[in-house]
């Protein structure tokens, strides 16, 4: 049995529009992969298929050897498959601390606790403090998320997902909107992750991609064009053409 994600023949179409086509892809535990490709290639859709936000038209998704296609999104998260959203999706009226608190509460399956105060758990609050300091947001702990700058919200987006301690982590353009001076907070956070965690990062910031990923998948028009080491992918003629522009001079 293989641990981690195993995607086979995954396809998705919206009406007549084919957005994912026959994608086969492995993300074993410990992997650090990047998914790149032009806008509209179907990267976010692929992440949404894996996490269960979208249902595939065909194909299978296995996690630790068993089919998870029938599980809804929340059930997959509870198995340890978590993602950040390309479009920041947070609890806007809750403070940063409350956002992270919710993540920990759900991870520990305490979400149906009706009696105990949510904020009276020393270990939980210490863990939140740790996350806050990792992202240099200690001062912002009690600020409602909607009052934060967009770049800071992006960091909360990542911190909230990390608070779930996932086993598979999908990052959908985590650095988009983060000021370049703070992008290192993201790569630092990824570097600190447990080694056996599987990471897939969707990203346009190639510096970040090269810092994080040991393997790169290029998606074009819903199909995997090539998968290989950063060097292989950088050397691939088709990829170069794609990224150096359609103009052939």
């Amino acid at each position: 049995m293989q641990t981690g994600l195993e995607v086979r023949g995954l396809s998705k179409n919206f009406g007549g529009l084919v957005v994912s086509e026959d994608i086969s892809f492995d993300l074993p535990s410990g992997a650090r992969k990047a998914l790149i490709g032009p806008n509209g290639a179907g990267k976010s859709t692929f992440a949404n298929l894996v996490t269960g936000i979208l249902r595939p038209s065909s194909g299978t998704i296995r996690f630790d050897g068993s089919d998870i296609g029938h599980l809804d999104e929340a059930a997959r998260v509870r198995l340890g498959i978590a993602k950040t959203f390309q479009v920041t999706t947070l609890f806007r009226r809750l403070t940063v601390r409350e956002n992270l608190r919710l993540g920990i509460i759900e991870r520990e399956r305490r979400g149906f606790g009706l009696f105990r105060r949510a904020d009276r758990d020393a270990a939980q609050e210490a863990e939140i403090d740790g996350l806050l300091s990792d992202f240099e947001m200690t001062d912002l702990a009690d600020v409602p998320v909607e009052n934060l700058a967009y770049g800071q919200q992006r960091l909360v987006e990542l911190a909230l997902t990390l608070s779930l301690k996932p086993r598979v982590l999908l990052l959908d353009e985590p650095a988009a909107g983060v000021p370049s001076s703070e992008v290192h907070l993201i790569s630092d956070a990824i570097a600190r992750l447990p080694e056996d965690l599987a990471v897939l990062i969707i990203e346009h910031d190639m510096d970040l991609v090269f810092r994080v990923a040991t393997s790169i998948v290029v998606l074009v028009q819903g199909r995997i064009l090539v998968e290989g080491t950063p060097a292989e992918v950088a050397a691939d003629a088709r990829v170069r053409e794609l990224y150096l522009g359609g103009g052939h001079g």
Partner: protein
Amino acid sequence: MRDHLVPIVMGLVAVGLFFAFPYDLAFLTRVLVTIVLVLSVDLVLGYAGIPTLGQAAMFGTGAYAAGLFAIHVWGDPLAGLVVGAVAGAAIALVSGLVLMRTRGLTVIMLTIAVAAILHEIANRARDLTGGADGLRGIRMQPVLGLWEFDFIGRTGYWYALVVVIVVYVGLSILTRSSFGLGLRGIHDSPERMRAIGAPVYWRLVTAYTIGGGIAGIAGALNAQITQLVSLEGFAFSLSAEALIMLILGGTGRLVGAVIGVALFMTVHHFAAANDPFNWLFVIGAMVLVVVFFLPQGIISLPGILLRHLRGGRDADRA
């Protein structure tokens, strides 16, 4: 201690009102019962973000259940409250299993429909409910075997006050719990709640059921104190007024429900006495002012004033 400041103040004010207005106990008791109902709307709508215009479905069910229980089974008030709570929760659970699968306007329409259907059932089942004449012949035993319900309504008032405070404290514990935080999370972003692994549907069903139980308590309380249950308990106007009161006071905070009810019913009481035809204009104007100038409700007023005062002082200094 700070957590329970509001119920303590509420209790003190209620004691004061008891002595200040000994001849208005019926009205004051109605205020208390309404607070329980509006608190239930606050849990469902203010915290969980479930749009509802049908909380009367559970209020009416609780009222009929408690009334029938008192007539046919046992006249003990507390047992009757439990029956009302269970009946309200049961209706909320059964309807919630369907309602919580839908969103937005559909939810609103369905909550209205549930109350309308129950209204019609109660109307048709004359033999059981008395139909449009109402359910009569409710005779309550003394509260805890000690306090007889009296003509002037003293016992009813204290009884309702204790129930309000117990419900308030219960809800303040609930809304501060992990579950309560999760409801606020769902209100802000159900997508994100799912993405952190929360079974959003079951959370909403649970919240709606608890809210239904509390509305059922309100209905039962009303039945026991007035010794009458009428079809009005299922009326759309009851659900709508409860919502207006909550919006006036401020949603998403329990004290908002208390203040909204007190304000609405006081204005109603006096305005309707002065001008039985035009009092609705007063209420309407109040709602408009709040919606446009205080979207967070009356409870946001002190904070806003404070900020203005501070801002003013800062400006002076500058």
